[in-house]
């Protein structure tokens, strides 16, 4: 019997075990089953993509397929949503938060795992504990606080808040990774006379590519997709994120199915592209960060 498809990167014993073949007709049925699910997943996306490309003439005629495709609807939405400004805003918020989370998170995790200080575990635990606190619970007091600070509608305000909210998870991930690094590396750097700061940024972090990639990607995704926080903290359209701006467009007048579809397409496009590029890291990050068995 021909050997089954072998996943080239499979390393776990259980995985290899699962690769030994099962019934052939069974596998075909499984494949069809999975394909059907894939169709169910992709159909909505394909539908809105198609719908967004329908020309004005096509709308009047009630044609189903966008042939020939027209960018009219998409460009109208592009214009109405204040692009590319909102896209740039989202870029600023996400990259600002990701970088801040990397720096602040790695520092705290480093102190919590590699620096000799009393109470480091307690501090780590205290921070990570806030994982459990959802921001809806503190919505009002948080907003009041931001208002008092004068940060409402300020770009750095949103970045600071998003960083604060992403820290528990990020620090948890950094700490778990740092713990797996041997202490000898830190000792060696100390012997060479490096300060803690230098050790972290010039020795440890270059060795931490996996966790940097994972935290970077995961934080990029949630900060980009978030609507609750930006909705509350940003009041002027000029400073608003892309996703929120687009979502708010739907409430406005003159939104046909095609317009709504274009809104959805524009909103999803950056993430679709990001996913295509960073697939491996995203999946690895989600899976490894998730298993707590």
């Amino acid at each position, binding site marked *: 019997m021909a050997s089954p*498809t072998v996943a080239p990167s499979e390393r776990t014993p*259980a*995985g290899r*075990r*699962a690769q030994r073949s099962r019934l052939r007709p069974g*596998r075909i049925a*499984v*494949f069809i089953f*999975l394909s059907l*699910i894939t169709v*169910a997943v*992709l159909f909505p996306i394909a539908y809105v993509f198609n719908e967004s490309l329908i020309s004005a003439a096509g709308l009047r005629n009630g044609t189903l397929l966008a042939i020939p495709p027209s960018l009219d609807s998409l460009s109208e939405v592009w214009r109405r949503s204040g692009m590319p400004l909102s896209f740039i805003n989202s870029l600023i918020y996400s990259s600002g938060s990701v970088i801040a989370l990397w*720096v*602040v998170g790695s520092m*705290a995790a480093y*102190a*919590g795992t590699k620096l*000799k200080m*009393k109470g*480091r575990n307690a*501090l780590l635990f205290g*921070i990570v504990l806030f994982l*459990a*606190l*959802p921001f*809806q*619970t*503190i*919505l*009002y007091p948080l907003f009041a606080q931001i208002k008092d600070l004068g940060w409402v509608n300020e770009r750095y305000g949103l970045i*600071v808040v998003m*960083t604060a909210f992403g820290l*528990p998870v990020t620090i948890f991930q950094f700490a778990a990774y740092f713990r797996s690094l041997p202490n000898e590396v830190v*000792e060696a750097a*100390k*012997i060479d006379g490096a300060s*803690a700061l230098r050790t*972290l940024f010039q020795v440890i972090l270059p060795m931490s590519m996996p966790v940097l990639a994972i935290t970077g990607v995961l934080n990029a995704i949630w900060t980009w*997709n978030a*609507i*609750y926080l930006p909705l509350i903290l940003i009041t002027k359209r000029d400073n608003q994120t892309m996703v929120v701006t*687009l*979502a708010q467009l*739907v409430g406005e007048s003159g939104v046909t*199915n095609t317009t*709504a579809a274009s809104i*959805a397409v524009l*909103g*999803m496009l950056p993430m*679709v592209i*990001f*996913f295509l590029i960073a*697939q491996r890291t*995203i*999946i690895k990050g*989600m*899976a490894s960060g*998730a*298993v707590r*068995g």
Partner: protein
Amino acid sequence: MKTTNVASEGTFRPSMRQRVLGRNPHGEGVTGLLFFAPALILVFGFKGLPLVRGILTSLTVKGHFVGLANYERMLKDHLWLESLGNAARGFVVLPIFIVVPLFLAAVLFQRVRGWKFFRATFFLGYVLPAAMAGIMFGIILGSNGPLLSFLRAVGLGGLAVPLLARTETSLWAVYSVVFWAWFGFGTLVYLGGLAAIPEDLYDAAKADGAGFLQTLMHITVPAVLPTMAYWTVVCTSGFLLGLFPFLHTLTAGGPGYSSLLPEYYLYRAFTQPVDPGYSSALGLSLFVFVLLITLLEIRLLYGRAE
């Protein structure tokens, strides 16, 4: 040869030089605090402090201390209770969210041709902005959408109901969209859990002649219980705290309050002129609610895993 004599924390033997210079043997405390500082300020400042203020505020009405009056009001709040009822109804579909991804993960684990492609596609829904997914499904499930057009075309016009606009179906329509978005994540989580199962268990089962389903029931499921517990907690907190983008773009809690969930009611309380004391009380109650349910689930599922 080590030149420092700090062998491990607590067994410091200062050299003559260090004793003379009075160097702090556990000297990284200051550095440590400095490293922790930004994180501490951010987390305690923007999560801890608001929490404390929230608790205090919840005990006030219009700025005056009133003890638990807000909580009493909450218990009589018709809309709040409705939203809790809807949340409870949502838990009816929680088992689907928990079991189906496990099944899919078990299937994918067989490594059929292209399983990585399937895994990635299933996961795509989770990566997309939920608000956009909501808009997308608003179209798909809408009166001019493909679903209804299809039903009419095949002669099932009677079933062609705009699901999001009917009180009987709006809640379930929302949960269906959420399922579309989240099942891939669950599959991924379970795949990780399955990969951690030691091979010997499967070998023993095969030696005993167990088939696919038997292996699934007696080996895989018990070994995957911790992962299931984790995923259950994720889904539960997601149900109670993470549906906002979907609700906001699909139904805004309507029609009426058929799809109103506590989380969305909180949002409404925030955007409308409702007493801050009351909305703080609502928020805290929701938090406690989530904590209790997840603790219960962890006890149930992790307890079973022993």
